C-alpha cells in the first residue's frame, strides 16, 4: 500500500466506562456544604443510579482515548456529500463560550438579555439578505425540524384559506427527512422523478400537482449536485394551483451570493447552520435549522419572535396566526452565535465561499472522471456523484472502495445516496480543501481503483488500519445490545 500523509498509526485500547472506577473515587470537586441536612420524604427517596465512580485522571484518559478513534474535519478531508463538512473556525467556539452567552438564562428579563437578542435580530437579517427571503425564525434545532416547521406553515396556510390539502410533491432525489417531515403533518408524499439531466421538469411537476396538493419540496441545488434549472416554471405551476414551494437549503453552500431563493419562486426555505455556516457537527448535532419565508407567510412563523421597539429588543408571542413553538426556548442559541461570527468574518466574501466550493467539486469531478464512472456527465455545483459501474464487473462495490479510502486517511463520501444512482458515491469537497489535498484524494482513489483490478480482496477486507474492521451490522440489528451487558439489570436489583 502506498503511504499517504494521513495513513493511520497509534491506537490505544480503552474499556467501557463501566469496567473502570472504584467506589470512593471522585472525578469532580464537590461544592462546599454551607447548609444543614433537612429531612427527606422517605417514601419518595431513592438510592440514586449505580454509576461507576472514577477519578479525574481516569475520566480524562477515557475520553481522550475514545476521541483518538474518531475522524473529524480537523483530522482530514471529509467529503461527505450533502453534509457540507467544511472547516469549523476555532474563534467561533471561543466566542460562543463567553460567559455572557454561555451563562445566560433563557428567562432573563428583557433588559438583561439585550446582547443575545441583538445577535438573534441581526442574524435573522443576515440570513434574510443571503437568501432573499423576508422573514426568518431561528428556532428550529436542526434541518429536519426546520422542514417540519415549514410543513406546519404549509398546513396552517392552507387551513387559513379554508381548505387543508393532503398531498405533497417530493422528488426522487430528496433527503429522507423530507417525506418524513411531511408525513408528521399528515401530508402524503407523491414522488416525481428527475429527468435525464438529473433535474425536475415542469411537465413532471405539472402532472402531479393538483388542488389537493399542498405544494412541493425541492432541494436546490439538488442531491445530484445540479441546480434545478426549471425552478421558476415549477414554482409557477405550483402557485397557479394554489400550492407553495418549499426549498430544502441543505445545499445552499453552492449558491451564496449567486442565487437568492426569494427571487426564484421559493416560499419557504430552511438553512442548516451546521452545514453552510460552519458550525461543528458534533458527531451528530447539535445543529440549527433556521426557517426563512416570504412576507405573506411571516405571520405563521413560530413564536416567540425577536422584535425591536424603540431601541429595545424583546421576545414577542403576539402573532395570532403562528403555528406555535418547536423548541423549549428559542432554539440553539449557542449554534447561532457561531454562525453569526462566521458571517461577520466573511461578509460579502461569502460569494467566494460558494465559488470555491463549486470549483473544488468540478475539479474533483474532472480528475476522477475515467477513474470512476460519472453518473451525469455535466458541470456540477458543490458536489458530484459517481458510481461503482466500472468496478462492478471486478466484483468490487462502492462500499469496498470507500472503506479502502479510510486506510488512505480520508473520510468516505456519502454512499448509496441519492437513490436514483445505483451504487452512488457522492463527493462534496467544500471550499475548505486546498488543491494539494484534493490531488491527494484523487490519487488515493486512483490507487484504490488499481487495487480493485490487481487485488480486489484488499478492498473486500478494507479498512485494515482502523481501530476496528468492518462491523457486523446485521447481527447488531437482529440482536440489539443497546446498553452495557448486566449494568441495567444490576441497577434494577439495587433500586
Amino acid at each position, binding site marked *: 500500500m502506498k503511504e499517504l500523509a494521513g495513513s493511520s498509526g497509534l491506537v490505544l485500547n480503552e474499556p467501557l466506562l463501566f469496567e473502570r472506577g472504584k467506589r470512593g473515587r471522585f472525578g469532580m470537586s464537590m461544592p462546599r456544604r454551607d447548609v444543614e441536612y433537612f429531612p427527606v420524604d422517605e417514601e419518595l427517596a431513592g438510592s440514586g443510579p449505580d454509576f461507576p465512580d472514577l477519578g479525574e485522571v481516569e475520566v480524562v484518559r477515557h475520553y481522550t482515548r475514545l476521541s483518538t478513534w*474518531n475522524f473529524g474535519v480537523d483530522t482530514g478531508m471529509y467529503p461527505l456529500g450533502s453534509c457540507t463538512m467544511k472547516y469549523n473556525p476555532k474563534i467561533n467556539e471561543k466566542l460562543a463560550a463567553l460567559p455572557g*452567552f454561555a451563562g445566560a438564562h433563557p428567562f432573563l428579563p428583557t433588559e438583561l438579555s439585550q446582547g443575545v437578542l441583538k445577535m438573534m435580530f441581526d442574524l435573522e437579517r443576515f440570513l434574510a439578505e443571503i437568501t432573499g427571503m423576508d422573514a426568518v425564525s431561528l428556532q428550529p434545532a436542526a434541518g429536519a425540524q426546520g422542514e417540519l416547521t415549514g410543513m406546519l406553515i404549509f398546513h396552517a396556510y392552507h387551513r387559513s384559506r379554508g381548505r387543508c390539502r393532503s398531498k405533497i410533491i417530493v422528488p426522487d432525489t430528496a433527503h429522507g427527512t423530507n417525506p418524513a417531515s411531511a408525513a408528521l403533518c399528515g401530508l402524503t408524499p407523491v414522488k416525481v422523478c428527475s429527468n435525464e439531466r438529473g433535474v425536475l421538469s415542469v411537465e413532471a411537476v405539472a402532472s402531479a400537482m393538483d388542488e389537493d396538493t399542498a405544494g412541493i419540496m425541492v432541494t436546490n441545488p439538488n442531491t445530484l449536485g445540479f441546480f434545478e434549472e426549471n425552478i421558476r416554471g415549477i414554482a409557477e405551476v405550483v402557485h397557479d394551483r394554489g400550492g407553495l414551494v418549499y426549498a430544502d437549503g441543505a445545499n445552499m453552500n453552492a449558491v451564496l451570493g449567486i442565487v437568492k431563493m426569494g427571487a426564484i419562486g421559493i416560499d419557504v426555505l430552511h438553512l442548516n447552520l451546521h452545514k453552510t455556516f460552519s458550525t461543528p457537527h458534533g458527531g*451528530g448535532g447539535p445543529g440549527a435549522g433556521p426557517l426563512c419565508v416570504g412576507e405573506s407567510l411571516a405571520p405563521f412563523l413560530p413564536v416567540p419572535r425577536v422584535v425591536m421597539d424603540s431601541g429595545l429588543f424583546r421576545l414577542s408571542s403576539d402573532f395570532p396566526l403562528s403555528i406555535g413553538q418547536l423548541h423549549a426556548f428559542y432554539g*440553539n442559541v449557542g449554534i447561532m452565535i457561531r454562525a453569526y461570527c462566521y458571517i461577520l468574518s466573511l461578509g460579502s466574501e461569502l460569494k467566494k465561499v460558494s465559488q470555491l466550493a463549486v470549483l473544488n467539486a468540478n475539479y474533483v469531478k474532472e480528475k476522477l472522471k475515467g477513474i470512476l464512472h460519472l453518473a451525469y456527465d455535466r458541470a456540477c455545483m458543490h458536489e458530484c456523484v459517481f458510481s461503482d459501474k466500472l468496478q462492478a464487473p471486478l466484483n468490487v462495490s462502492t462500499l469496498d472502495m470507500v472503506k479502502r479510502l479510510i486506510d488512505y486517511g480520508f473520510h468516505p463520501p456519502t454512499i448509496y445516496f441519492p437513490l436514483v444512482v445505483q451504487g452512488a458515491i457522492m463527493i462534496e469537497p467544500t471550499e475548505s480543501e486546498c488543491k494539494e489535498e484534493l490531488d491527494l484524494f484523487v490519487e488515493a482513489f486512483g490507487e484504490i481503483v488499481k487495487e480493485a483490478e490487481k487485488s480486489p480482496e484488499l478492498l473486500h477486507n478494507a479498512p485494515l488500519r482502523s481501530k476496528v*474492521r468492518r462491523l457486523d451490522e446485521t447481527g447488531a440489528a437482529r440482536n440489539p445490545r443497546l446498553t452495557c451487558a448486566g449494568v441495567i439489570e444490576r441497577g434494577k436489583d439495587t433500586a
Partner: protein
Amino acid sequence: MRYLPHTEEDIADMLQVVGASHLEELFSSIPEDCRFRGDLKLAGPVTEWELNDMMAALAHNMAVAPEYKIFLGAGSYRHHIPATVSYLLGRSEFSTSYTPYQPEISQGTLQAIFEYQTLVSLLLGMDVANASLYDGASALAEALLMGARVTGRKKVALSSLIHPHYRIVVCTYLEPAGFEIIQIPYGLDGTTDLSGLREIEGLAAVAIQSPNFFGCMEDLSGAASCAHDAGALLVASFTEPLAFGLYKSPGVLGADICCGEGQSFGIPQSYGGPGLGMFACLKRYMRSMPGRLVGRTEDRDGKPGFVLTLATREQHIRREKATSNICTNSGLCAVTSAMYMASLGGGGLRELARLNYDKSEYLKGELRKAGFGIPFSAAGFNEFVVELPSGSEAVYRRLQDQKLVAGLPLGAFYSEMANRYLLCVTEIMSRQDMDELVSQLRAACNSLAGN
C-alpha cells in the same frame, strides 16, 4: 480570507482543468433569470480581533453570574461544570465529526454514546435510551407520538404542571396530525390532580412532569396505575435530571417512556439552547422509538465495536414511514452529559442532589421565617413557589436593580398565579446569597408597604 486556502495560481490551474475561463462560468447552468447579480449587503468582513471586540460587547450586555444572582430555573439550570468536561468535549475529534455513519472511524463517538445510553437508562430506571433528541420539549412531543404508535390511539392527556413551553410544543407537533390533547388540572398541594383521569376513554398516553413546573414531586406510581388501567402509556417528563440522584427514578415508579431535558448535566445554559433531549423506554417498545440508537457488535476479527443500529425505524431508510423525521440530534451534548455523569459518579450524583435539595429547603425555611407564603406543601427538589404580597412587580424590579433576579413570575403562565414566583437554588448559590435574597425581599416589601 484565512478559511479559503486557494491562491490565485491555484484558481487559475483548477479552472483550466475544469475547462472554465473564470469562476463565474462555473455557474452557467443557472438560468440568467435565477441569478443574483448584486453584492450581498452584509456587515464585515471583520478581522478576528475586531470580532473579539464585537462579541465581547454583546456578551457584556447580558446579566450573568457572578455579577448577578439569578434564582431562575424553570427548565434551565445553572450548575458547576468541571473544567475537565469543557476541555474534553472541546476535543475536535468529537466536535468536528459527522453522525457516525462510518463506524470504523467513529468508534469514539459510538462508544461514548453507547455509554451515554447506559448511563441514561440507569438514571431513569428504564431499559433502553436513544442517542438523544433536540431538547426536553420535542422529546415529550416525540414520546406522545410514540405512545400513539404503540396504542393505535390519538388522544393524549397532559398535566397542566408540565413546563408551559413543552405543552405548547406538544400542541404544535400533534394538532395538525389530528390529535386530541386534554389538560389535566392541578390540586392545592401543587401536584397534578389525577382524580378525573379514569373517566377519559381511549387515551394513548398520559404525560406527567416530575419534579413538575412548580418544583413538586408527583405521584408517578398513582399516575402509572391510572394510565395502565386505561390501556395507555405513562410518559414521565422532567426538566431537572439531577433530582433522580435523590428521588426514585420514573422507571421504578412505573413509567413506560421517560424523557426530558439533560442540560443540567454539564451543558451551558446558552440562553436556552442547545439542550439535550434525553429519551428512554421499556425494552418492549424499543422498536417504536424515535431517534438514533447505538448497538454493540463485533468486527470481522471478533473484536467488539459499536454501530448505529435499528436504522429501519429511521427516515433515511423508511422515509415517510419512519418513527420520526429526526436526523441531526444533540450528539455532542449527549457526550458532554456522559462526561459529566462519569465525573460525578454515583456517589457524587447522590451528594450533589442532596446538596441542591438542602439548599432549596434552607431558602424555603428562611422565606417562611421572614413571613412569605410557600403555597404548595408537596415535596420538592431545587425549585419551589413563593408568594409575595400584592404589587410584587415593583419588588421584583427593585431587586433586579440590585442585581438579584428573584425567580420567574408565574402570572405570565398561570393567570391565577399573580404575585407568585418560581425560585430555583442549585449548589451554585451560597448561604450568603440566599440570606441576601431574603433580606432584600423583606426590605423591598417593607419599603413599598410603607409608601
